[in-house]
């Protein structure tokens, strides 16, 4: 470092390439960016910019490079692992104004978009051509494709169609030294190292994607959706195993437990029974002949596993409402609790029943409520641990419970995150999954792109600073209170 550079100096240099309204320095305005969807971690950036073109992103990154300044890219700020948490001594590069659809190529089933375009806008723009973009995170109405690329976002339909990495062909990226490179190509397969594959899912630590070429799929000829209600999550878990064992590859199998149903119904009214212990949303798609067979088999599997009631969506409107209900689950948690932690653990599908039972036991021991809503087909759990900071000790108990649940997933042969990313939230859990050698290898890849470690610092890799922090609204670290360290 050449010593800290002043905000005024940064502003002056940025104004060479950006308009005044694209440069944010006012404290209150900057504070609206202090967290993303993970509100427990907060930091106000030194300065923020709203570039509208690749050249403007490049100019901002160049200013950072010349002062060895750290920077963080942010899209819609919906991430659940704090991937877009700003750096208090760095620049925040907000990409929400880069939301142009650059090119639609229906014949070759691809589209070129800027990073601020939302996931759903891609499918909407593709729909007139009979095409759509398959990965569908629950936040798809608002989350941006740039963030999807950074986090390798998934979604309900990833069970059949795969994750972001399977649907992104090429990327234009601004690297931390302000150079612009293209990774991948519009071709379905390109020779050489798959640097596109390397970039996707690195949570913004290698550079900033400024253009994304996505692959589009033909809209399925038929879609059939059912909602099966069960007395217990264990029964629903059995049904999931039965469906997969029957050789069916459903487009999606989603589970909501009793508590999650309460929140979803209050928010959307999708018609899930408030008395059910669990519901499964099962969808199959494809050619109509194939669908009718697989759908009948899936229905039979639910009934055989003890479903109390199976409802079939009569039309597209009913299906849309069911999905709206499911996808509002996280966002509706404000109806149940003023604060919650979301976990994103993955377990082998066959262990669903026992793991859910164990989570309920752990929750009871902690005296907390846990709502479960998740991609059952993938075994990608999303336990939502509800707590209230106004009640003494609940936040600590919630954090402890979260750690125990994650350990439970790892012990069951699973992983600490399925699709939300590591970010700051689970950086401390990385050593639970990876050896020092593994982490060192990852760090070498990162260093190849970002030798100074200025691009989205403090994410993914465990650092001591983060591990002493607690979830929930900001409270000073014990060492801060003792006057031994500064917050940032």
């Amino acid at each position, binding site marked *: 470092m050449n010593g800290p550079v002043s905000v005024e100096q940064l502003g002056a240099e940025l104004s060479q390439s950006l308009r005044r309204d694209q440069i944010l320095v006012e404290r209150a305005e900057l504070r609206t960016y202090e967290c993303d969807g993970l509100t427990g971690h907060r930091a106000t950036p030194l300065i923020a910019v709203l570039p509208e073109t690749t050249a403007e992103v490049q100019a901002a990154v160049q200013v950072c490079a010349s002062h060895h300044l750290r920077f963080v890219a942010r899209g819609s700020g919906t991430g659940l692992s704090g991937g877009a948490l700003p750096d208090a001594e760095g620049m925040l590069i907000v990409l929400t104004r880069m939301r142009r659809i650059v090119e639609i190529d229906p014949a070759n089933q691809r589209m070129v978009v800027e990073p601020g375009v939302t996931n759903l806008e891609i499918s909407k723009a593709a729909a007139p051509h009979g095409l759509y973009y398959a990965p569908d995170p629950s*936040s798809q109405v608002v989350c941006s494709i740039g963030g999807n690329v950074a986090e390798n976002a998934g979604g309900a339909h990833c069970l059949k169609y795969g994750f972001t990495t399977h649907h992104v062909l090429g990327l234009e990226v601004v690297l931390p030294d302000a150079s612009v490179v293209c990774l991948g190509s519009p071709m379905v397969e390109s020779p050489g190292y798959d640097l596109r594959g390397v970039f996707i899912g690195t949570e913004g630590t290698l550079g900033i994607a400024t253009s994304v070429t996505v692959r589009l799929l033909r809209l399925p000829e038929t879609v059939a959706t059912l909602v099966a209600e069960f007395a217990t999550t264990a029964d629903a878990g059995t049904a999931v195993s039965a469906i997969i064992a029957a050789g069916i590859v459903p487009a999606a199998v989603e589970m909501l437990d009793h508590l999650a149903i309460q929140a979803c119904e209050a928010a959307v009214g999708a018609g899930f029974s408030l008395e059910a212990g669990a519901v499964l949303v099962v969808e199959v798609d494809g050619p109509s002949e194939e669908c009718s067979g697989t759908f009948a088999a899936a229905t039979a599997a639910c009934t055989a596993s003890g479903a109390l009631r199976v409802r079939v969506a009569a039309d597209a409107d009913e299906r849309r409402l069911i999905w709206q209900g499911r996808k509002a689950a996280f966002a509706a948690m404000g109806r149940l609790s003023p604060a919650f932690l979301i976990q994103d653990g993955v377990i082998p599908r066959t262990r669903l029943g026992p793991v859910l039972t164990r989570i*309920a036991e752990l929750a009871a021991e902690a005296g907390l409520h846990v709502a479960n809503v998740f991609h059952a087909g993938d075994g990608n759990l999303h336990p939502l641990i509800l707590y209230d900071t106004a009640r003494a000790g609940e936040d600590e108990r919630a954090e402890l419970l979260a750690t125990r649940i994650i350990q439970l997933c790892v012990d069951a042969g699973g992983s600490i995150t399925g699709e939300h990313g590591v970010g700051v939230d689970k950086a401390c859990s990385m050593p639970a999954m990876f050896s020092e050698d593994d982490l060192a290898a990852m760090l070498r890849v990162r260093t190849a792109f970002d030798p100074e470690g200025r691009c989205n610092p403090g994410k993914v890799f465990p650092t001591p600073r983060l591990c002493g922090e607690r979830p929930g609204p900001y409270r000073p670290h014990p060492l801060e209170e003792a006057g031994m360290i500064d917050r940032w």
Partner: protein
Amino acid sequence: MPGGPPVAVGDIRPSIASPLDACIHCGFCLPACPTYRLWGKEADSPRGRIHLMRLLSTGEAEPAAVARHLDACLGCLACLDACPSGVAYDEAIEDSREELESVYRRPFAERVLRLAVFALFPHPRRLRVAMTGAVLAKRVRLPGLVRRSGLTKRFPFVAALEELLPEISLTELWASSRAGRGDGRHLRRSRDEMVRAKGVARLRVGMLTGCVQQVLFAPVNAATVRVLSAEGCDVITPRAQGCCGALMLHTGRGEDARRAARRLIDAFSDEGLDAIVVNSAGCGSAMKSYDRLLAADPVYAERASSFSAKVRDVHELLGGFEARAERHGLEVRVAYHDACHLAHAQGIRSEPRRLLRAIPGLTLLEIPDGDTCCGSAGIYNLLEPVTADELGTAKADSVRTTGGALVAAGNPGCLLQLQRHLGKALPAVHPIELLDASIRNLRPDALRP
């Protein structure tokens, strides 16, 4: 909870102290917000504004810095529908704006502007006089002079107001000054006006005449009375009624709004009223919230809640019972515009559409991106003319794509804004005017202008 006892939402969720507490920062509101879509800035999104409101309430942000972003909020409440956690953004922004007004002194030009707006709009008599001045000024081509004088640069509001005013003749303007225009009979005791139901009365309703509505859209009020009567309502129009307070409520002038609310409750104190009918979406949504507005008022709290419970938008009321009057054919293609304070604030979407579709020959058209505010937003187009213009232009383009000959909207603010951006070629009318024309067997060209 496998095997556990059923749990209800209320078992877990403690009572919410502030409407802001329910916000979990998910961002689902972002794409619904017109200003976020224009500028892509967090501080001008509902989530960002909630963040700022919290900072304001804890004293962590300068009022001036917060004011800019709260002022830029249209109050269209599209975010209300988008929010899965049920954050009462409407209540939050009202509370925060009131808090802001108490701690923040606006710059001189803004103070003058607001003073002018509030000295004029909630006062029909003054508004009518001012309008007369405006009409006369237009005749002597004063607007051109004003523009050249540079006054509009200092006060862009003057230009915005001048452009917004509809083409209206002095006769029209003053014809409406006699409430009900003489076709009803006066009730002896209160000098209130009453128009009897055609046939056996189904309901006895009180009617709000509104401020802007009665001055600039007197024909809409007249049509409303005729339709209500034709559909079997005794319509009572209290003379003593004043402004409903919506404009004040939406701009942080809580005390003024409460005063207006109390006066209106007094004006409609007739206990025999089955409903209080409103044909202006903004007024109706404010009147439905009197219960909250006056909750802490020891004298009025109870009356406010029974008042609010009686308030019905005219579409809501008519949609609630079987049509009685015969509908005649009205061959016209009509684009229906959802007024934000009908659709988002009151959840009234299907009723106006159903009423219009029931008119033989009328083709109802949906406006693409119809959930987005037209930029009128009460007096927003006077206070924030640049943003309002951008939204108004976009809305006009969307309306034109429908190929409709008319656009219908249930709110005077929207009608002014739509008319200003659509021009004379595509008239903006209130749905009740269409219904009235159909019942009276008028031809479509009898509608304004």
